[in-house]
């Protein structure tokens, strides 16, 4: 790989990452919002290093062949435009993941409809000795994941700590409504169904919500919790 091509590859890579962090919000499909300025700074550095190389004359210094691979993420970004992780990544039905950073103190729910993250819902359903969820109406936002069991479906959201490679699916089974299309983003309003006393251990199966309303919504800008 000669000098000109090396420079062009760096310009392309820097430009692609700048594009998904400044022109659009696509970077939120891959990493936490806090990464934005780090990414802009890194992409600008790559772009400047590449652009500076364009103006130097060829010196016969051969770049490594492996640098061609740097065009692959650029191809993936522009051609596949990878969407946020959805129902395919959340399809596993065994041993639901426990949300991290769960509440340590469960404040009482006082509003008529309590909007909360699915992580908070799981935390309260599995870990709250005072059963603060019981009888309270809550609103959850997530996407539709079908179950292998007939007639059962989930509202789910992926939780990420850093990037989509560490995503864990958080799921709540929705009762009382037919399933919307797979991967459709929805808002579910309803009340928690406490598990039966002789049922499985808390945290081993997804909790259930008895829905009174299911509204289809566009995908939120920040797809992960």
């Amino acid at each position, binding site marked *: 790989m000669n000098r000109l091509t090396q420079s062009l590859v760096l310009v392309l890579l820097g430009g692609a990452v700048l594009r998904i962090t400044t022109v659009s919000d696509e970077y939120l499909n*891959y990493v936490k919002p806090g990464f934005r300025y780090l990414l802009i700074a*890194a992409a600008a550095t790559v772009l400047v*290093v590449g652009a500076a190389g364009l103006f130097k004359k060829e010196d016969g210094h051969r770049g490594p062949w*492996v640098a061609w691979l*740097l065009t692959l*993420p650029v191809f993936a970004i522009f*051609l596949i435009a990878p969407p*946020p992780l959805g129902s395919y990544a959340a399809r596993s039905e065994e041993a639901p993941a426990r949300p991290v950073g769960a509440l340590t103190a469960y404040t009482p729910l006082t509003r008529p409809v309590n909007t909360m993250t699915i992580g908070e819902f799981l935390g309260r359903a599995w870990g709250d000795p005072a059963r603060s969820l019981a009888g309270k109406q809550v609103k959850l936002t997530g996407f539709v994941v079908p179950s292998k069991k007939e007639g059962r479906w989930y509202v789910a959201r992926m939780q990420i700590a*850093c990037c989509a*490679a560490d995503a864990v699916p958080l799921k709540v089974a929705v009762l009382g409504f037919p399933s919307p299309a797979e991967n459709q983003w929805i808002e579910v309003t309803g009340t928690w169904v406490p598990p039966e006393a002789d049922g499985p251990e808390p945290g081993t199966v997804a909790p259930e919500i008895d829905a009174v309303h299911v509204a289809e919504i566009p995908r939120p800008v920040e797809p992960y919790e």
Partner: protein
Amino acid sequence: MPPADAESKGRVSGSWVFVALLCLLLLGQFFYAPYLTSPALQTWATVFVAICVQALPFLVFGVVLSAAITTFVPASFWTRALPRRAALAVPVAGAAGAVLPGCECASVPVASGLISRGVTPAAALAFLLSSPAINPVVVVATVVAFPGQPMMAVARFTASLVVAVLVGWVWLRFGKGEWLRARRRHDHAGFAEAVRHDLLHAGGFLVVGGMAAATMNVVVPREWLNALAGNFWLSVLALALLAVVLSICSEADAFVAASLTAFSPTARLVFLVVGPMVDLKLIALQTGTFGRRFAVRFVPLTFSLAVLVGVGAGTVLL
């Protein structure tokens, strides 16, 4: 003159390949993009791009720091800063890893820069292993991910430092200089040229690791793991291998470990000790930076010591 000829020919062909790629990219937006919609492919692409994007700031930081070390810090500084006896320099360098707040992508170019400035390879390798695991950001992330279990962060810090120092000492005693590919000196070329070369080189290998990790992430269902959770040694090995294939950034792996509730604390500790030291993207980066002869010895050594020390620390501290 054949060399000049080959040179100009190479220039034309390389740039033409690039132009062809660019055309493919533009055309592809209209013609291919609608067909690239299989959920498995999209999930793979999301994870692949996520790993690359997430690693980019750390890689750039590491490459710039490495170039600064090789260009601006005189070699004599390191001989004064580190103890003269290599056996002592190893633990000092290992402990110094606590001050570089980055993940593993930053530590490889930095260690390579240190070696090219005359730092004993064993000491630089101890630094390479310890810095992604024991820096303050990672320690805080571990404390946050395991609320009410501060011993997890303590055990992780201790075990990681011990592994780094042990590997350094083993390398000092048995390692051979010729296993480590000599870094081409770019001293004459200056700061910008070093940044440019390392970025292209390490970046390319990072993409290799990202592809492998994304593939394993999509192909290996997590259910397989839970079947092994009951048996102590199998569960430890399963999580050690999971840490290798998932290649999660060391600043985020504690959150994944916390979500693996089916496993014992010791198995999860092993996951946290192995992850920042051995994973697919790191293996690709190390092979690219130090050569294959280095990687085939260094990776198994680090992996086995990390598993053993992790189990020991888990038994004593957790």
